[in-house]
Structures are given as structure tokens and as C-alpha cells.
């Protein structure tokens, strides 16, 4: 089964929770995953951020659920990096 190694998401979120708390909550969804968030634009009640998550197996669905749970809204998936499964014995 293919593994998601990296995702780049465009997210609109409220000011609270802060970017740090937001990143921690998302990082908690995976094991040994790196999360990087860059604030692109700040409005009166919201901020647009670019979220990059990298790891051995990025749990995409759990990440989206966490974003929604924290009041964020996923605007677009701007990039993905997926690794295919190892060759099966038959293919070898």
C-alpha cells in the first residue's frame, strides 16, 4: 500500500489556537512526523497558513480531522509526495 511521505496544505484557521498549538495538535496525529507551518496572511479573525507535514506515513485523514476540529478549513492540497509499496515476490 502506498505511503504518504509529505503533504503541503493551504489552511484557513482562526487566530486561536495559536500556530504553535495547532502544529503540536497535528504532529500528535502521526509518529515521528515533522510539521512546519508558515503564516501567509493575517486577517481580522483568521489567518491563512501553509502546512507541511513529512514523515514515514503521514496520516492524512487524521490531519484533516484535527484541522476541522480546531476550527480550521482546508482550502487546497498544494503538494503531495507518496511512496509506492515494495515490490511483491511475484513481481520480483
Amino acid at each position: 500500500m502506498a505511503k504518504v511521505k509529505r503533504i503541503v496544505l493551504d489552511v484557513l484557521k482562526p487566530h486561536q489556537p495559536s500556530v504553535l498549538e495547532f502544529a503540536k495538535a497535528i504532529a500528535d496525529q502521526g509518529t515521528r512526523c515533522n510539521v512546519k507551518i508558515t503564516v501567509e496572511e493575517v486577517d481580522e479573525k483568521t489567518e491563512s497558513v501553509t502546512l507541511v507535514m513529512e514523515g514515514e506515513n503521514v496520516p492524512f485523514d487524521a490531519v484533516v480531522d484535527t484541522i476541522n476540529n480546531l476550527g480550521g478549513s482546508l482550502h487546497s492540497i498544494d503538494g503531495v509526495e507518496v511512496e509506492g509499496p515494495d515490490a511483491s515476490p511475484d513481481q520480483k
Partner: protein
Amino acid sequence: MIQRLRFLLNLSRAHGIARRYFFTNGYDGALTILGLIVAFYTTGDVPTHTAISACLGAAIALCISGLTSAYISESEERKKELAELERALVTDLGDSEFGKASQWVPVWISLVNGLAPFLVSLFIIAPLWMDQIGIALPFPPLESAIGFALLAIFFLGLFLGKTSGSFWLWSGLRALLIAVVTCLIIFALKL
């Protein structure tokens, strides 16, 4: 549970509101009961059980008033804030942590607002209870209750000074001064 409540309060920035309500209504309660007790003192010959009933009635009324007024105003305020945030995010936040915060934060704030005057009032009338059940007090019950009220008001002032970062002793003394002036006005009017 406490951590979750802290998270929801932080999310909705309601820490400061709960603190303000605690001081405002606690102070209201303390000053109301102090006024009643000083009035009983100046009247003279008021039986202790009558003073307890009157103070307890006032404490319950303050508690119910605090609970309901804060719940009604805060829940409406939270609903408005949630709707504004939903408009800004173009999404439904009903199932998110913001939705939960808009339901639970008014409950917490109303509990603080209602219980603060009630508990402060119970503390102030404690000497009257003690006298009623036969515990010996160093001073007569009404004078002791006045002392407890001044102490409660001083500590509420200290609490406000500590949380606001200003000089705590001055804040406590200022609250105490207001309470003393209130007592003097009641004494002067001989209510």
C-alpha cells in the same frame, strides 16, 4: 477534565472574563452581606437566626442572579462570536472545539459568577452559624461577621491586585477602604 476546560477557556479567551466575574460578583456579595450585617448591628437586638435567614436569603438570590444573568449574556455573546467566526472561515464550526467552547464556557462562567457571591456570603455569615450551634467566639457574632466581611473584601482586593499585576497590598487596602466607607455611611444613617 481541568486541562480540557483550560483548553476551551483559552480557545475562547474566557480566562479574563471568568476572573472579572469572580471579583465583581464576589465583591457584590461581600458588600451586600456586610451592609445587611451592619444594619442588623445598628438596629440592635436582632436574633442571630433572623440575621442568618436574611443573609442566606440574600446570598441565594445573589447566586441565582449571578448564575442566570451570566449564562444568558455569555451564551448569547458566544453564539454571536461563533457565527462571526463561521462567516469568516466559511465553514460550520458546530462540531469543532469552538462549537463545544461556545456551549461549555457560558456554563463555567455562570458557575463562577453565581458561586462567587454565594461562597463569600457563606464565609461572612460563618460566625453567626458558629454562634447558633454553640461554638464560643472571641467577639459577639455580628461584630465577628463584620470582621469576616472586611477580611473577605480585603482578600478579594488582593486577588485582583495579584492578577492585574499591580501592587497587591494597595489593591487590598483600597477594597477595604471602600468597605469601611460603606459601613460608616450605614452607621451615619443609623439604618
